[in-house]
């Protein structure tokens, strides 16, 4: 262990990511958060666990990222009533997860925003779905949600959602505006809350991975992969190199599919039907290849516990290389057209800007952070197989506006295409599935961490097993938790009609956030 760790002794967390964990009392926990923050650390996730049945109490976990390492810091909430020290003054990104902790587990911290976050009316304020003794939930009446009011002459509110104008996920946006200028945007989420974490706790891994791959449909590979990594670490699977290569191939193909779709939608929102049509066709062909080679247009169920579901033969690998060459040529042509299109660039440039400073303050991650010049990428920050064997390009843009996110998506398509070629060239022979772990040899870990750099950013899955075989707690963290507040900042001081463009340039998850 490195001496530069400023806090208590840390134990290695099972899993391919460089992660360490420690349990401490509340004051030390808050102190450790502050120490890491002052040394450039960031909050990657915040969640809780009911471990009362094995005497550990109600636990609060912070996952910090610092200096190429992940630190899983745990504290037990003080009982009666359960509470823990607030850290949202240290990490603003903690504010909404803290509210979710109150909703789901009844663990409070003071002082913090007293409004519920994920809970609307599906269960009452005195019931906590993630507690072991939760009975099922009494549905209450719809109560109005107090949005933060903005005062001043001529200020009014525009309420949008939960049903939006287009074919997208449900959420509510409250704009405070003067004329067309946005003074403040506040979002309210939780409409897509499906109780997925509660269910995951009861499912055997073979079934759990199917559910994990159906929580955020555009990121099914990233979610299933992160879940598989955590379960495999817990049970001691050794993943064969070929399966690792194919997993990365699936993840990079998912990245390209989403970038193609969003670039088309951005053209459409800016009124360039040509671009929407062209990207729509490119994405469609890409998805048809998924169906042909992996049996599902969005690659659901292609990752299994211990490996991957299907192999690629030599002809498929050659076909994929040809497809990549064709795709890149088409994308280059469209990139030239879009970058030369004055009308389109006029809409994109200086619209929806987030600064690097804002990204750092709010612990922004993924593609949105990289478009503002902040390199946040699980594949680079926390090197793990198979990316350690591949030639990584790390495209960055610095402007942080819609144009930068568009430019970065183009660059990431090319970077992912390069990675795919590299994966295909280096794909080792061998089995697709890890041998069944020898349970007599492996001392079963109590905690494990998996993570994948999905197209939006880092997706984490943590699994905790307390007392015995069946019972475990699964937490899934979507990068949108950190990036929704960034989107709100990006919309501030902009124009209402620019919001669809800004929103689409981020394209954050609702279901992945609401779980």
């Amino acid at each position, binding site marked *: 262990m490195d001496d530069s760790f400023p806090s208590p002794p840390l134990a290695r967390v099972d899993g391919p990511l460089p992660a360490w964990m420690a349990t401490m009392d509340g004051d030390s926990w808050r102190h450790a958060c502050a120490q890491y923050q002052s040394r450039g650390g960031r909050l990657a996730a915040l969640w809780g666990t009911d471990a009362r049945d094995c005497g550990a109490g109600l636990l609060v976990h912070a996952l910090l990222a610092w200096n190429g390492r992940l630190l899983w810091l745990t504290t037990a909430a003080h009982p009666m009533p359960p509470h823990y020290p607030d850290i949202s003054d240290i990490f603003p990104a903690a504010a909404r997860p803290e509210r979710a902790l109150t909703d789901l587990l009844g663990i409070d911290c003071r002082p913090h925003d007293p409004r519920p976050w994920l809970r*609307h*009316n*599906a*269960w009452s304020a005195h019931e906590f*779905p993630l507690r072991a003794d*939760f009975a*099922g*939930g009494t*549905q209450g009446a*719809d109560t109005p949600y107090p949005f933060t009011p903005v005062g001043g002459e001529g200020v009014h509110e525009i309420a949008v959602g*939960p*049903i939006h*104008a*287009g*074919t*997208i*996920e*449900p959420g509510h946006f409250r704009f405070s505006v003067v004329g067309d200028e946005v003074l403040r945007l506040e979002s309210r989420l*939780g*409409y*897509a*809350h*499906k*109780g*997925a974490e*509660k*269910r995951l706790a009861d499912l055997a891994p073979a079934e759990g991975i*199917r*559910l994990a791959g*159906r*929580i*955020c*449909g*555009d990121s*099914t590979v990233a979610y299933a992969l992160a879940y598989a990594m955590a379960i495999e670490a817990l049970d001691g699977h050794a993943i064969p190199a070929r399966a690792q290569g194919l997993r990365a191939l699936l993840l990079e193909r998912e990245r390209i599919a989403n970038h193609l*779709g969003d670039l088309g939608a951005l053209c459409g929102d800016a009124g360039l039907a*040509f671009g929407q*049509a*062209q990207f*729509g*066709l490119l*994405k*469609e062909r890409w*998805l048809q290849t998924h169906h042909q080679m992996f049996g599902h*247009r*969005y690659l*659901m169920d292609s990752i299994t516990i211990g490996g991957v579901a299907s192999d690629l033969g030599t002809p498929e690998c050659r076909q994929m290389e040809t497809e990549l060459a064709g795709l890149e040529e088409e994308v280059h*042509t*469209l990139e*030239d*057209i879009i970058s*030369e*299109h004055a009308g389109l660039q006029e809409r994109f440039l200086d619209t929806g800007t987030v600064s690097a400073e804002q990204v750092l303050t709010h612990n922004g991650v993924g593609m949105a952070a990289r478009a503002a010049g902040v390199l946040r990428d699980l594949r680079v920050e926390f090197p793990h197989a198979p990316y350690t064997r591949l030639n990584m390009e790390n495209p960055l843009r610095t402007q942080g506006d819609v144009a930068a996110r568009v430019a970065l998506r183009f660059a990431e398509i090319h970077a992912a295409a390069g990675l795919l070629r590299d994966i295909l060239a280096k794909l080792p022979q061998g089995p697709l599935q890890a041998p069944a772990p020898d349970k007599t040899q492996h001392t079963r870990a109590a905690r494990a961490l998996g993570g994948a750099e999905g197209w939006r950013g880092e997706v984490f899955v943590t699994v905790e097993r307390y007392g015995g075989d069946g019972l475990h707690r699964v937490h899934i963290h979507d990068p949108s938790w950190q990036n929704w507040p960034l989107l709100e900042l990006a919309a501030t001081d902009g124009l209402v009609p620019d919001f669809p463009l800004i929103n689409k340039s981020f394209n954050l*998850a*609702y*279901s*992945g956030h*609401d779980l």
Partner: protein
Amino acid sequence: MRRLIKRILTTGLPAARLSAISPPQEETGAPATFRSAVGGAIAVRHVDAGSCNACELEILAADNIYYNLARLGVHFVASPRHADVLLVTGPVSRHMVTAVRDAYDAMPAPKLVLAFGDCAAGCGIHVSNYATVGRVADVIPVDIVLSGCPPTPLVLVEAMRRLAGKK
């Protein structure tokens, strides 16, 4: 601009046409009153009632130039007041029940409800629990169920073709 025009002129047709793919087996029975009322142009309002977003991706894909749902006279509208068909996805989270009912009530008659995907049909991986109702039919009357996780764009195109009474 010259490149854009050149690109438009040289964009070919998709190599495979839809007829090359076998149609799905879903039966849809649009009443004659509905068919005559919509006059061959169907306005669709989509509502995501807690889906994972994969169904939304396939609905959007049905509108791309390959499947070209618009060619059947199907268009997506922003308000349920302009809609003939309510296209609902997801296991209906409890937090979306009010919105789904409001959207349905706001539609003029005759109207049809299409439950899109296994979750909306009640046979998906997201079952009813403390946060979800479990299927669209438990909230509003459902006329047509399209299964799949997610159903492919072709399933939607075929359902709409039958609704519109087009060959």
